[in-house]
């Protein structure tokens, strides 16, 4: 390690390659952390985890007993085992005793992306609440038509502060914090919406996955979705650079425009009615392509915004190329995935590994070859959510056994952990 640092100092290795070598070394060797422990106050299964995006310091968790807790993952509250194990208790926790707390399970808890002064929780009691962190009071309340499965805010947004909410209702609603009202709804799904994610490359693009198996891309400035992912539209791996690309996808998808052209040829289809000229946004509702054979239970956009990983209740994971809308046919070996609850997946910082909760274990897959590189077994029951912190190269997972586990590399860190000051001498 010292030799590598000396090389970097002398200029023999470039800083970027040094950094990526260190981070990939740490993230490829994850085990149950032997120096860090999070003491979870929850009495129900942990449904959602998120570390804040600004500092990477506070972990927000939402659980099925309607409680929400915030942990500081960088400074421990106490030390055990002679300073070897850092215990992190909650900075504060909101449970059912709170006046304005949720009544049923909290299914999603996310930080306001700009700073940690606000956080948003969504629950099965049909409400989305916006909380002030310092005073732990509810600032805003949005009532949804059904159980809230997921809420998301765009990390890139500079001109809007919309919360996209996926509920068991077929419409995706956008709630505006600035005005306290709903800004608009996106319709097109034919069943509840289990996963909602904002794109990491554009502040206007939203990706939703529904219980009908469809994944739709919405530009919130326009009506209707502009792309529906179809699992039969495939491409073999990464797209080639523009000059050498050859279009191997021969057949055209049947869209509303296609039907209009065919009608013009004078043939009427057997049972169908003549299509009225529809708004192009509404035509997307006719598109019934499915991305999975069951419900879409989890989705994750990679950091560079180019690929989407989706998990379905048909126990398949699919990797999609967002720009071309094709299935890249990478096969991730999963025997079973949870089907009733949405799962939260994570990708490592350089998008090399994907962490997916598969029943009681969390499997780390190599994103492009689909091989299982690590199986992390530690939870006693099903794992619901995981979050990879790229600052510390650590993985936090939460499951039905009410625990939040920390997985980190077992190599000793260079900076010595702070030990308690045991004697009476002043330092």
């Amino acid at each position: 390690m010292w030799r590598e640092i000396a090389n970097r100092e002398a200029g023999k290795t470039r800083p970027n390659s040094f950094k990526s070598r260190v981070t990939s070394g740490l993230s490829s060797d994850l085990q149950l952390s032997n120096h860090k422990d999070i003491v979870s106050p929850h009495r129900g299964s942990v449904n959602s985890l998120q570390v804040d995006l600004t500092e990477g310091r506070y972990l927000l968790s939402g659980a099925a007993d309607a409680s929400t807790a915030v942990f500081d993952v960088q400074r421990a509250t106490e030390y055990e085992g002679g300073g070897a194990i850092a215990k992190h208790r909650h900075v504060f926790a909101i449970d059912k005793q709170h006046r304005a707390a949720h009544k049923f399970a909290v299914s999603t808890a996310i930080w306001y992306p700009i700073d940690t002064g606000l956080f948003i929780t969504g629950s099965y009691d049909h409400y989305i609440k916006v909380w002030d962190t310092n005073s732990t009071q509810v600032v805003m309340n949005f009532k949804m038509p059904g159980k809230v499965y997921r809420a998301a805010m765009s990390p890139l947004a500079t001109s809007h502060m919309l919360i996209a909410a996926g509920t068991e209702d077929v419409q995706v609603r956008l709630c505006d914090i600035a005005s306290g009202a709903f800004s608009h709804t996106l319709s097109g799904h034919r069943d509840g919406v289990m996963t909602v994610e904002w794109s990491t490359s554009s502040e206007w693009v939203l990706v939703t996955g529904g219980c009908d198996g469809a994944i739709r891309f919405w530009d919130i400035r326009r009506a209707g979705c502009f792309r529906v992912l179809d699992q039969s539209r495939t491409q073999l791996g990464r797209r080639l650079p523009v000059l050498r690309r050859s279009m191997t996808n021969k057949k055209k998808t049947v869209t509303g425009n296609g039907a209009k052209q065919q009608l013009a040829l004078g043939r009427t289809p057997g049972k169908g009615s003549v299509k009225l000229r529809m708004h192009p946004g509404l035509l997307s509702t006719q598109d019934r392509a499915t991305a999975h054979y069951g419900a879409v239970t989890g989705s994750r956009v990679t950091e560079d915004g180019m690929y989407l990983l989706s998990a379905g209740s048909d126990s398949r994971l699919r990797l999609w190329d967002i720009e071309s809308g094709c299935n890249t046919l990478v096969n991730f070996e999963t025997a079973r995935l949870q089907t009733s609850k949405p799962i939260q997946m994570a990708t490592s910082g350089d998008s090399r590994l994907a962490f997916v909760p598969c029943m009681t274990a969390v499997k780390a897959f190599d994103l492009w070859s689909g091989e299982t590189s690590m199986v992390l077994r530690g939870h006693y029951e099903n794992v619901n959510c995981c979050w990879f912190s790229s600052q510390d190269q650590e993985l936090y997972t939460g499951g039905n056994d009410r625990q939040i586990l920390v997985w980190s590399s077992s190599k000793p860190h260079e900076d010595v952990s702070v030990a308690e000051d045991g004697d009476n001498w002043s330092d």
Partner: protein
Amino acid sequence: MGDKSESSGSRKRRRDEADEEEEKTEAAGDADEAPSLEDSLMFSDTLVALRIMRAQFPRIDKVAIEPFVLRSQLYSSVKDRTQVDRELETLKRENMLRIFKLNTGQDDHAIMFLEDYLNQIERVTKRLEENKKSDTEVLEWFKKYVIDCKLEPSIDHQELCLLLSNGGKVKDEHISLLINAGLLTRQLIDPNMYWFAIPNIGSILKGLSQGRKELLSLLKRRRYKEMMLAPLEKKRLRLSPLDIRFHLRDLIGSGHLKTLCTPTGLVVRVSKD
């Protein structure tokens, strides 16, 4: 190639053959480029595995059916699953085989070579012509227009009528005939979409799901939930017309069973997850 497959007996040797073929023949070119003629003359290793398994398909006396291979069987006999998926996609686009979605589970797919599928349709056509006098020209239109054009496992009603009307005027009775012949099945979720299906496969699918359950329960009843492969292969399943090698490959590929190497041979164990 055919002789070699007939003579060697054990499943493990078959898998070793598939692995050898993997090392000998490269996969058909760089998968990203458009397939050229010289690439499609070479065997990709998924293709070798498909041909070998097709040759091993058990003969069933009661039902006349052409051999098909399940996707999970391919996963268990070729190491890299992504490569299997991509090669299947290339072969499908080259019109060498067709993939059908089965209703025996969440993600079951059956792969059949195109010649076999067309033979199966011929058989069904002949049987229908003998039995009733209703016009079977729809089956001809189906073969000529729909199968060539539509490569996915499902088709929606509008497009089906449009493609069939290339042959003549389409009536509702025609679609009913196709469904009765077993070539199409309606989707449960969406009344306007149909799955392509293999005719006469019903009893075999029942045998498939019952055979899976029987084999799994056989292993689960044992004390340590495992058994040596050699004696396991010799057993016969009561409820399934398909042989045990078929079911073993399928269950290993779908992850319900796993194999371990021991000094005395391969052991098959129920995987817990």
